[in-house]
């Protein structure tokens, strides 16, 4: 065991994956010599060579498109998109091809590709560096979506994503890269994709969240606990496949659900969770489901008011109070 930040755990996972499987290769903008703008690939090129960890020209569509070709031809590509907000030029490759290769070749081909992208706000980045586009990916058939919230989860889930025979989007909260530390096993291990984590147990209200919002929910839960409210936090860990069983079991126990994401409100993944709860567990609900989200506006890069857009513990605590007082 070694104390690691999330970015260190990711670096460790990539290192182990390269060591373990010669077909794994890592590429993207600045991932080589520089070791990534967040240093997630630090030292990997020096250790594993320029053939396996390499810088590409600057073009997101071609990074993903080239990765698709590499995956078709038997490699295990791990592409880095420098910020999730830069993912959009590659959406044609993702929606038109990455997600449907297995389907459109009846499994003659499949794409064991991972696309890593830092996402989300909370660290005062410039414009377009703080987007949370996970719902776009979750709405795309044929791709998996993973969003870890702890260093240990990040490592185990990333190694599982690389070992997965199908394409996986791996979103890494920029806020969590260095703000959390924990003991992480140094050896190779995987965590199952599609299994949520119960962060804290409680009997009164279920808070469903993932990635950067888990930390926010934990702070809100602490405040609620002081007020005598038992909060159960579910960290989804993966949006596709979704571990609905864990969500429903908790909501059936507590009778109340608050869903927290930092993505815009309309048609976000929070709405998917709410719809599923309404379909499957409405008889257990003692209050309307409440969503705490960003707004239907582009993420603001204004330091003074960034926290208004991105849910903070106070907003989550208010939502908990609201469902409790219904």
């Amino acid at each position, binding site marked *: 065991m070694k104390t690691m930040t999330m970015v260190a755990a990711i670096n460790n996972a990539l290192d182990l994956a390269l060591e373990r*499987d*010669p077909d794994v*290769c890592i590429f993207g903008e600045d991932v080589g010599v520089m070791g990534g703008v967040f240093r997630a690939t630090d030292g990997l090129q020096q250790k594993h060579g320029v*053939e396996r960890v*390499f810088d*590409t*020209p600057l*073009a997101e*569509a*071609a990074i*993903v*498109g*080239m*990765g*698709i*070709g*590499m*995956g*078709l*031809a*038997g*490699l295990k*590509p791990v592409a880095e998109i420098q910020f999730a907000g830069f993912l959009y*030029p590659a959406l*044609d*490759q993702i929606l*038109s*091809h990455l997600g449907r290769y*297995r*389907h*459109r*070749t*009846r*499994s*003659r*081909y*499949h794409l064991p590709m991972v696309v890593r992208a830092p996402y989300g706000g909370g660290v005062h980045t410039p414009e377009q560096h703080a987007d949370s586009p996970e719902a776009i990916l979750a709405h795309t*058939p*044929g791709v*998996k979506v993973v969003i870890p919230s702890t260093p240990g989860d990040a490592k185990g889930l990333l190694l599982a994503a690389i070992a997965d*025979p*199908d394409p996986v989007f791996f979103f890494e909260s920029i806020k969590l890269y260095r703000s959390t530390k924990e003991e992480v096993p140094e050896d190779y291990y995987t965590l199952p994709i*599609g299994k949520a984590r119960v962060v804290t147990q409680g009997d009164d209200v279920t808070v469903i969240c993932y990635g950067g919002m888990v930390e926010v929910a934990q702070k809100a839960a602490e405040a609620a606990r002081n007020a005598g409210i038992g909060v159960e936090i579910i960290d989804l860990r993966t949006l*596709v*496949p*979704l*571990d*609905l*069983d864990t969500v429903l079991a908790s909501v059936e126990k507590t009778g109340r659900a608050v869903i927290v994401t930092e993505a815009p409100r309309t048609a976000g993944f929070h709405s998917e969770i709410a719809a599923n709860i309404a379909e499957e567990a409405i008889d257990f609900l003692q209050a309307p489901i409440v969503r705490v989200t960003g707004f239907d506006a582009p993420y603001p890069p204004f330091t003074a008011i960034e926290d208004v857009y991105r849910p903070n513990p106070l907003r989550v605590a208010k939502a908990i109070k609201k469902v409790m007082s219904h």
Partner: protein
Amino acid sequence: MARKSSTVTSTKDAVQGRESTETPAAFQAAEAAYNQAEASGELFQILAPDGTVVRPDLLPPAETRLHLYRQMRRARQFDERGWVLYRQGRLGVFPPFGGMEASQCGTAAALTKNDWLFPTYRDTGAALTLGLPIARTLAYWRTSPHGWAMPADLKVLPFYIPIATQYPQAVGAALAEKRQGTQNVAMAFIGDGGSSEGDFHEALNFAGALNAPCIFILQNNGWAISVPTTTQTKATNLSKRADGYGIPGVRVDGNDVLATWHVTDQAVKRARNNEGPTLIETVTYRVKAHTVADDPSRYRTEDEAKKWLEKDPVTRLEQHLLKEGILTEESHAALLKEVAEEFEAALTEADAYPDPTPAEILDHVFAEPTPQLLKQRAELLEEQA
């Protein structure tokens, strides 16, 4: 570690059943020939439209010429029968490619079965040439999943419907082959309209920067549905776009199969020799409609198409082969009969493919279906019961 067999392909195999007579001198002669043609504003040709030989020094062996002719005839048979089958309601939407056989068959014939082919929806001729079974190809255009199940011994992808997206993918496949120590290459097709897409430019740049063994075929066939090349771009020589990416670009008469084959063969050899990618512009014409659902009379005159029929790639080589005695009237008739029979047998095979069942919609999304897919399957089966 499980490693794919790294098949190193000799140039001997570049066209099945053909002995290569290429020499470095011939290679240089070819380079000089394109340059000369470029300089005079003419297209590089080996055969003139009337079937006379304009570059006797570059004439491939008789066996190769015959092989290319057979491939073009197989493609034309598919194209002509495809149109009829559509009218009979036995084929779905079908994009005809008649008149572009030299552009497709000549280029694809330079590959072996170890190489990758990324065809657009109009490149049935190229796919057939590499060896995609006619029955599978018919099934694809019948919108049957049997047309999606690509044969395991071929590295040909299902026809690409989005424009130019296959270009960066071919770069990736080419790089992966190189990484795995093979000399296999990837070939991707596009039209003149596709060369306006960002993916086209990104792929050429990536291929050059990363030295991918990739051959980009740009079929300049005059029209992107109703938009002529002159509206598509101000550029008049699309092969020059390669210059911007530091890779060779060659412009060739796309209706002269000997020219398209020759140029592509050179590019494939360069790629196998780790000399990097090539862009080949084949100047040709889409004689028929965009698809069976299109009415070209809304945007172009019949005269234009007629002019191009005089440059027909199939009759061009046919005249040459008959004149040279490589084909006789009898052997030609026998070849046509064989090609027709091959098609009809494949049609019978395709007719026998069973229709998919509704639950097949949910197959092949992931290696393991998610809980959501399993639930949707159960719901679908219940509805269908």
